[in-house]
């Protein structure tokens, strides 16, 4: 294997990992863009969505791999997405909405509480043992010019690209997307223009949560499903959102991909021990906060009195 093949191998691994981070980061960034607060429970919504997807998939898939298992996989993914969307809206309604006029600290604390409730309820109901999500297809790697690519990675790339493009189109072109942008720009003015801000916020939560569930279900093939699966992944995705510029949708995508590449290449080329891989993201966070606190694509906001 030549070194350029090795490079493309890491590039491929980094891109798929980064795509996952990007999907999760989108939820953080959209919520932050509108409500200006970090939804700490985002990673746990991801976890719940993955469980629902897993249960659905196990219930409807047959024993033999074939076209049906792939269809079943997507149906299960959709089930997880819908459930998470509902869950996200419910959480917003119950735990965040009453605090919208409170101080900045209050919704953050409430979100941490929700996160803790979800992860421990899951451990309670479904046990702490991780559950395997079976591949819907034969996952033997394909070798393309010395680079080995698993069908799983191809699946991730396709889903991530489809999701991102449709989200971008939705936010930029649709009426609801326009309302979302308006609400994020100035909630009060948006309301005066006849936009139902509460509904837009609920939709934002639903979309973000559904994307998180998708990401969770996709990585579950590799890392399995367990109650704390969303914690670290969620944190790193948040870092990705900050790196890209929080509140900025393209920034979240860029930040996610960058973080994925950074982790993969950091371990492969810079010789960072695998055990400290999770540390890379936080070092990146601190550096970006010091050098360019508004993120790569974020715009500088002057604080006004």
């Amino acid at each position: 294997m030549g070194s350029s093949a090795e490079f493309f191998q890491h590039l491929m691994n980094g891109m798929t990992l980064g795509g996952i981070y990007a999907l999760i980061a989108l939820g953080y960034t959209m919520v932050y863009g509108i409500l200006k607060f970090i939804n700490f429970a985002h990673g746990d919504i991801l976890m719940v969505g993955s469980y629902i997807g897993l249960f659905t998939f196990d219930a409807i898939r047959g024993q033999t791999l074939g076209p049906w298992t792939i269809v079943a996989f997507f149906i299960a993914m959709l089930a997880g997405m819908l459930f998470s969307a509902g869950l996200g809206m419910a959480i917003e309604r119950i735990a965040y909405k009453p605090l919208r006029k409170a101080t900045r600290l209050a919704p953050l604390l409430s979100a941490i509480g929700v996160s803790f409730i979800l992860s421990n309820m899951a451990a309670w109901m479904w046990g702490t043992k991780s559950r395997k999500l079976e591949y819907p297809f034969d996952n033997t790697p394909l070798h393309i010019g010395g680079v080995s690519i698993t069908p799983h990675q191809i699946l991730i790339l396709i889903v991530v690209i489809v999701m991102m493009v449709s989200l971008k189109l939705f936010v930029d072109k649709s009426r609801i997307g326009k309302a979302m942008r308006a609400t994020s720009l100035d909630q009060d003015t948006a309301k005066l223009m006849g936009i139902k801000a509460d509904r837009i916020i609920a939709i934002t939560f639903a979309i973000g949560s559904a994307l998180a569930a998708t990401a969770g279900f996709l990585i579950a093939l590799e890392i399995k499903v367990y109650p704390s699966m969303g914690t670290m992944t969620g944190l790193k995705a948040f870092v990705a959102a900050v790196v890209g510029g929080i509140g900025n949708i393209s920034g979240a995508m860029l930040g996610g991909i960058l973080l994925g590449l950074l982790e993969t290449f950091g371990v492969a080329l810079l010789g960072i021990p695998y055990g400290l891989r999770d540390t890379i993201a936080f070092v990146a966070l601190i550096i970006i906060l010091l050098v360019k606190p508004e993120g790569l694509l974020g715009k500088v906001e002057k604080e006004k009195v």
Partner: protein
Amino acid sequence: MLNFILLILIYTGIYALMAIGQNLITGYVGLLSLTQAGFFAIGSYVTAILSVTYGIDFWITIPLAAIVAGFFGLVIGLPTLRLKGDYLAIATLGFGEIVRNILNNWDKVTNGPMGIQRIPMISVFGVRVSPYEKWGFLVLVWLFVLVGYLLFERLAKSRIGRALEAIREDEIAASSMGINTTRYKVWAFVFGAAIAGVAGSLQAEFILSVTPGAFTFMVSIMVLCMVVLGGMGNFKAVILGAFLIQFISYFPQLVGLSNVIPPQFKQVLFGLILVIMMIWRPQGILGREKRNAPGSFFRKGGRS
């Protein structure tokens, strides 16, 4: 039974120290730090490593634990505290995880996931203070709580405390009054970290062993719950909060139902406490001390 109550009270004391530190950071300055577990771990490991590997006396390791934890507070605080509070929560959460990561992987010094065992027991004026002599340990821990309480209470009532509260109420206004906001925030963070280090040191001496598994995010959440439940900005209240949370967490064992009630139950309860308190009683059970706080932080309209 009595033994068990003593155990709860000892843990209340150890956590009360951490809660006092958290209260300075969250209750007074209004910053959400989620890393008391990290500083707690650092304090524990300083005492464990120094006393086991180097045979240094416990009384020397305690101030060192405070200093090392405080130093890490400075290291993590300097870059993150210059930014808005929201990032701090994530950065500190990440820091706590990094600490645990390093403790797990740095085998040479920390002995990895196995941790460090057989920490020597201590005696105070010839009186053995150990997990087997709980009364003695209880007195020792609560002496530390008393000293910590008095120190932090003084600090909060002093000029520094007023500056901290000014920062919480309005950072821009505070800085235009000539308060160096970053410096004060970093100091609060360092003090909060140092007292958590002392708590860690005491816990190491109480359990006589340290393992990375004892310093999960759960610890930081418990400390946060103590502050929120008792009342932010009130040191007496957070000590009460520490007792209540410890009581809740040992309640199943206390009534002999630990095999009926799953361990997750109390954690779900902690989460519920955070949400419910924020919605219905954000000022906590006792509320903020009224002294020099016209217009409480949480009752303010908060329009943007």
